[in-house]
Structures are given as C-alpha cells and as structure tokens.
C-alpha cells in the first residue's frame, strides 16, 4: 500500500543478486567442481586435448541450441532445428559436390536454414498454428525432403578448405570453438544491447502486453525463427565439415540434447527469461558430464539417464531460486 506523503518507500530491501546472476554463478561453480573432481580422478581429463575436445563437442550443441534459446525466450519453441540441420547438411553437401565451391555450400546451407525458419514464422503468424505444432510439422517435412533428396546415398569427401570449418585450428584452438565464441558474443550483445533483443523478453513474458505496447510481435517472431534456422544451417556446415560426410540421419539426434542444453542453462520454457551465455554453460555442462562418464568407464547406456537427471535438477533448482526471489 502506498502513502503519498511517506518520504521514502518502506519496502526497500538489502541489495541482492538477481536470479539470473545467481543462475550463472551456480553453473560456473558446478563446472569448476566437476573439473576439479575429474582432474583428481582421471589423469587424461586435464590435458589440453581433452579440454578442447569437450569444448568442440559443446560448440556444436551450442550452435543448434542458440537459435532455439532466442525462440524460447520469446515464448515460442522450435522443434524443427534438428531436421533443418539435416536438410541444410544434405543440400549443401550436394551443392559443394556439384560445383566444387565451398561458398556454394555455405550459401545453400544458410539459405535453406533461413527458409525453413521463415516457413515456421509464416505458419505461426498467418496460419495461426501454435509453435509446437508448426515446428513439429516442419520437423517431419524437412526430414522427409532430406530422405527424398538423398535417395539412400551418403555424400562424402570434401576439400580440405571446406573441412577447415569443422576440423581446422586457428591459434591452436579448433575453429568450431571460435565460431561458438563469436556467435555467442553476437547473441549476448543482440539480447542485451539492441531494442529488438529487449523486445524478445517482453513478448516472452507477456505477449498480449507486448502487442498493446506497440511491439511488432509477429515480425519479431518471424525474425527469431529465421535466426534459429540460420543457426541450424551454420551448425550443419560445421557438422558436415567435421564428419566429412552428409546423410539424412545426422541432425535429428541433436534436437533433444539442444533442448536439454537450453534448460540446463537456465532458460525457462515459459519464456521471458534466460540468455545465451547460460545456454553456452548448459551445453558445456552436458558435454562435460558425458566426457566424465566416458573417462570413468561408465557404460554409454547410462548417458541419457544422467542427462535427464541433470535437466530435472537444473529446472528444480531454478524454480527454487525464483521462488526465493519472489518473496
């Protein structure tokens, strides 16, 4: 209750950390703990090779999950990223084979990714299909086109210039890690330092209020699905360059780990909160855990179980922190 004549608001509380900061600090701490524990348990963990290997695997997961993170913060969902990655990979591989130009492959992959994203946006905005259903449909459509296009073949064997994107090094660090750092930095700046980035949070927190505040929500949404598609295309290029092959089974297994990376990072599926740095941490944690299980000789059959447990724990922990902040 407010009184007009009280000199200062009485509800002032001691300064406390915002829940977002808490989430990031907790995750950094978790990564440090796992790292310390593992270096004492396994002599191979703390080697440069192993650490770079972990980050390189995390970078692919992050690229797929980064566009998804933006879409989820805005209150949407993109289930088509895995299949979109497959389609981009197959089409770009074929384009490179046909033209022997890596640039043709890059253009095809990024173009295909954006186009699938645009279709998602149109389905949601114009045809009024909920994001879950629209992108779920696109998952099957993109996958189907990839199967038809490849007709059971595998495209493999690319020039070293193209493979540099997946397996090359720059300043001693694998190229995919550089790509992760650059796109991550761009994404963080986009979310925190552009008006569109701020609008993403508003539309995710309350879409009706965002519309009635004059935010062009439909256009912003289309843009975000296009960015999500673009990131799938970029991930496809790096994946093909790393595997030196493309076939219709490569993207689909990445969808659920990407969602897991977003959740473990601490971005809420309900929209309105989260961030890209958090997804980077989430992808790192998931990769780190799998690496730990491998080093400790735990059977691979247990990996999904552990991943699931971590996702649930992360979501529960965030819920507890948010409840604390709300009091």
């Amino acid at each position, binding site marked *: *209750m*407010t*009184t*007009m004549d*009280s000199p200062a*608001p009485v*509800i*002032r*509380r001691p300064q406390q950390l*915002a829940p977002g900061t808490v989430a990031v600090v907790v995750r950094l701490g978790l990564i440090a703990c796992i790292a310390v524990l593992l270096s004492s348990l396994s002599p191979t963990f703390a080697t440069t090779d192993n650490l770079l290997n972990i980050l390189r695997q995390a970078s692919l997961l992050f690229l797929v999950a980064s566009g998804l993170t933006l879409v989820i913060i805005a209150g949407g969902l993109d289930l088509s990223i895995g299949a979109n990655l497959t389609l981009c990979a197959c089409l770009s591989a074929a384009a490179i084979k046909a033209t022997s130009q890596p640039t043709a492959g890059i253009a095809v992959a990024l173009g295909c990714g954006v186009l699938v994203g645009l279709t998602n946006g149109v389905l949601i905005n114009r045809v009024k299909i909920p994001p879950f259903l629209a992108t779920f449909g696109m998952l099957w459509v993109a996958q189907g086109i990839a199967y038809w296009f490849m007709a059971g073949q595998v495209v493999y064997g690319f020039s070293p210039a193209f493979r540099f994107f997946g397996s090359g090094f720059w300043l001693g660090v694998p190229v995919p890690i550089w790509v992760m750092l650059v796109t991550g930095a761009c994404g963080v700046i986009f979310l*925190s*330092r*552009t*008006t*569109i*980035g*701020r*609008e993403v*949070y*508003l539309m995710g*927190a*309350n879409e*009706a*209020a*965002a*519309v*009635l*505040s*004059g*935010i*062009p929500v439909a256009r912003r949404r289309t843009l975000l699905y296009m960015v999500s598609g673009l990131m799938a295309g970029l991930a496809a290029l790096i994946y093909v360059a790393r595997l030196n092959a493309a076939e219709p089974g490569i993207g689909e297994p990445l969808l659920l780990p990407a969602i897991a990376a977003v959740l473990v990072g601490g971005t809420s599926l309900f929209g*309105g*909160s989260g961030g890209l740095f958090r997804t980077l941490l989430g992808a790192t944690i998931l990769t780190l855990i799998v690496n730990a299980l491998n080093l400790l000789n735990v059977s691979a059959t247990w990996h999904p179980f552990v991943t699931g447990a971590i996702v649930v724990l992360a979501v529960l922990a965030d819920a507890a922190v948010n409840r604390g*902040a*709300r009091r």
Partner: protein
Amino acid sequence: MLANRESPDGGPETMAVRPGRDQGTAEPLLRLIDISKSFPGVHALRGVSLEIHAGEVHVILGQNGAGKSSLIKVLCGAYLADDGVIEHKGRRIAIQGPADANGIGVGVIFQEFSLAPYLDIAQNIFLGRERAFAKAGIIDKAAMHAAARDVLAQLGLNYDTWTFAADLGVAQQQMVEIAKALSQNSSILVMDEPTAAISERESERLFEVIARLKQRGVAIVYISHRMREVVALGDRITVMRDGAVVASYRRDEVSPDEMVGAMIGRSLAGLKRREALAAGAPVLTVTNLQTAKLTDISLEIRAGEVVGLAGLVGSGRTEVVRAIFGADPLRTGVIRLDGADFAQRPDRSTRAGLALLPEDRKREGLALPLAVGENATAAALWRLFRRGWFAPSVAEKVCRNLITRLNIATPGPAQFVRNLSGGNQQKVVLGKWLAAGSRLFMLDEPTRGVDIGAKTEIYRLIDDLAKDGAAVLVISSELPELIHLCDRAYVMRDYRIVGHLGRNELSEKAILDLAVHQ
C-alpha cells in the same frame, strides 16, 4: 447522435431505503438476512437481506460493482458470508460450499458456460451423474438420452441430444445449462445476465422457458440491468448499490425511472469536478467505425479535452478503444489523427502517438515476470533508441524520472513489477505511455483495483495530461469518477453510441438513462 435531455438537477439523489413489503405473503423459499462479506479494503456486501419465493422471478438490479456478483457467489457457495443468516423454508442453514448450495437446490447459470465442448447434450446434462444410468458398470446410453429428451421437453425444447455442445449456439448452450440445472432438481435458479450474449428472438425463447419454470414452482433470481426485461419479467425487484440493498419493490409498485433513481447516488467524497480547459484542434476523429461487433461509431476528441466513454460492462467500450488502437480489425470506417490517416496496427498507432491503458493490467498491461524498468520503457524503445541500440543507462534514467514524476513506490527500476501494489502497477502502465510521448491517451478503467491515494494521483495526472495539450478518452464504470474527470461523454449501449452528453448535461441519471434499456 445528440440526445436531447433536460438539464438534470446535478447532485446525487438520495433514496430512502424502503422496507421490504413482502411480509404477510407466503413463506419464502429462501431468506437472506443481513448478509455481509468483506475483502481487504472492500465491503462487497453490507447487510443484504433478500427473500426468494417459489414460482417468482426476483430481479437484482444494480450498476457494475453494486454487489450482484458477490451475492450470487454467496448463494452458490463460492464465497462464505462473514455475517448474516440464511433460512431455507424457514429453517436456518449454512452455505459453506457448493455442495451445501446444491443440497438446497440452488443452480446457477453463469455468463460463461461450463459445458464440455466435445460431449453431447445428454452427456453434458448428466455429467458426473452417469452412474444413475449404469447397468452392470455400462452406461445405458438409450436411457440417458431418453432422460435428457425428457428434461428438454419440460422446457418445451426438442433438441437432438446427440449434438456436441461445441456445435450449439450460445442460446442453445444456455438452454442446455438450464436443463442441466433442472435435471438436478434445482428449485432456485440463479441467472447472471442471461440475455447479455443472445439475440432478441432468443431472449423471447428464454422468457418462455422462464415462464414454464415459474409454473413448475422454480424460484428464479435474475440479474440484469436491461430495464425492459426487468419490467417484463420481475415479480420482485431489488436494487443494490455499493454492496447494500437500497430498495426492494413488487413490480406493480415501481416505475423504471424510480429504479434508475435508486441505482445511482454513489459519490466520490470530497471530489470537485475537474475544471474545463479551452479545447484545441481535433486530435482524434472517428467516423462510422464498424467492426465484427461495433456498429456505426463516430466520435471526436480535441486537444486538452478529457472525454468519457460511458456505458455498462459489455456495451462495447473496450472494443471501441481496441479498434482505434488497431488491436482488433476494422470492417469499415475512418480514423484520423490530427486529420491524417494512420495504419490501424498497434505498432503504428504507438508511433503515431496513441496510448492504450488496457482494462486488465495484469493480462494486457504489464509483463509481470519482468522488472519495473523493463515495463516502463516497453512502449518507448523505438523512441528512446532510434538506431536500435539499447543503452541500459538511458533506460534506467528514463525509468527513474517516471518513478519520481508519478510517485511510484518502488526501491528502483530493478524491482519486479509483480511486487508492486495495484496502484503503483497502474502508474507503471501510465508511465509506459508518458515515456512513449503519446498525445492521445485511451484509458480503460484507469482506477480499477487501485487504492484511494493512487486514484487521486491518477486523476491529477489525467488533468496534467489535458493541460499539456494531450487528448484523453476515459472509460469507467464508476459514474462519479467519469463526471469528476470528463468535459463531456459519449454513452454506449449494445455496441453503439446512443448519446452524447455535454458538460452541463453530465449526470449519473443522464448516463444511466442512456446506458440502460428502457
């Protein structure tokens, strides 16, 4: 459009509370004595007494916020009365929950129906009571549908009981609700504004059904503010105002004028009318606007004017401002700002200088999970950061200025907006539009759920806006508030503007005469 009316006598009329004249007649089916209910800061019901008789229609009449809905909720067990006595057939009882209400045969037809869309009519009527038709654990569908047809026949209806509720029109759904209540042997049927969403012809059908129910000895509590229905249906009429019963009549004792007189008379203590300013050039002109719901809306607002949009809830006031803002599509009509066309789309309207403060601030006005600062700049990002680069320091400065200017009680821009009181939240929504530099403010119920202190501040702010040359359109269900704030007002009924009242014509009586069906 101008309604010619005599100049009213101004001050709020006082109305003597008439004692109920029901003594001496038969024993009432249900008698409420001195029922009170309060919530923190609000007296929803103050000592309400009411008699409900079998075979009679008892109309409850009153403005929005008079306490009609609270009364229904006490009757159906949704609210537990703080104080008072309820007698059923002369025996004192307690209604402590929906089960108790069902036990004495109270059935309620709410405005929002609760039918399961993909169950058929028979399944809906007997929902939760299928066991009555079970034979060895299997439902005898034939028997259930026969029973459903039987209930509908009692209402004079001949529906195909296999139809899904989703395929029924609003009026038919209402009939199924009534049949459902009847099948539960309801002896007291409460109807909350049953004709609000149905056509004239369907209303006639409803009145026939009500007549049949009366013959069967069902008591009907009928909430409405349509004078024509009140006169046509009501055997007893009770008028409520500010949570209390102000008058109770038998139909033959009272004229519509007298009832309207009893409905008004609330006052805002210590409020003088806002001083009128010299109006400038027209800011907004709306000509023959038509949407899916609205017909033929024309209005004009000038710079420095505060114009009211009066009417009862559901008369189309919100739809008008939404259409002007571009939130709902237009069919036809011309909307001009400063004499120029602009695209009817919320983002364009915002940039053109329109502001909309929505009726439901939690659902449409604020992003509750976000901070005060993020909300306060939500409508102004385009203006503060023309190149699209966001600077947190600038946003924070703008927000701090708003906090000072609007006297928002919050530790700072980083505070979550959900932790603010209703009045301070509303100031954040207003601040959003101040930051956006709007020139036309459309305020839909700006003081709903706001404490007295913040209310006065919002009034002062509206006055300041007008002095600065902005145009303000105010929607309010609180007539004293409208009269206090507005230079003139348009009155709506049934999605049309039915009249315009100039400064000297503006009174509660004049507004209600236009807003209520006669």
